[in-house]
């Protein structure tokens, strides 16, 4: 019984996710909810506001600057934590 318990849990999770996938829009749809409200603004305004051709870099460093700042801090903390945990060389 103890060997079958992980399989049972995984099958329940998979059933829930399969029901959720049934409500997703079709793959590659042009007017899906993920790409119809906010992202047309970024695509239109990226060169006029940020002056950068690559839209991903523009969103990463201009509109989502706080996010990137926190993420750089997370990387810094991870490096310091590993150096403090096993600092022998």
């Amino acid at each position, binding site marked *: 019984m103890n060997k079958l318990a*992980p*399989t049972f*849990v*995984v*099958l329940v*999770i*998979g059933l829930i*996710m*399969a029901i959720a*996938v*049934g409500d*997703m829009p*079709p*793959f*590659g*749809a*042009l007017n*899906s909810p*993920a*790409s119809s409200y*906010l*992202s*047309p603004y*970024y*695509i*239109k305004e*990226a*060169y006029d506001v940020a002056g950068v*051709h*690559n*839209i*991903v870099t523009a*969103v*990463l460093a201009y509109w*989502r600057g706080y*996010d*990137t700042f926190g*993420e750089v801090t*997370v*990387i810094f*903390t*991870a*490096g310091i*934590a*590993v150096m403090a*945990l*096993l600092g022998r060389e």
Partner: protein
Amino acid sequence: MNLSFYLQHYNYWICVSLFMIGIYTMIAKKNIIKKFMGLNIVDTSIFLFFISMGDKRNAAAPILHAENEIIVNNYVNPLPSVIILTAIVVALGLTATALSFAVKIYEEYGTLNSEKIERLW
């Protein structure tokens, strides 16, 4: 619920199966490093889910090649790429910290089996 419904969602079914495989690894396997590999598989399945949500049919990568006239449907959604780009590097930091903890645990207890570690602790 016919065949074309399943064929239109094929990326999402792969994501669901990868998520199930990763969760099974994290629950059933006893080795700690194998658990971290399962964690990475779960991470990657979620990344694939986000990236397939942002794709558009007959569109190009989100890099502008003409500044004057911009047609929105010619470029894919750039927002999932941004979120996943930061998440990949955070996953690297998470894996490094977890593996250094695993090395410390092996130096302390001499085993990587999680049940033995719980018994010795």
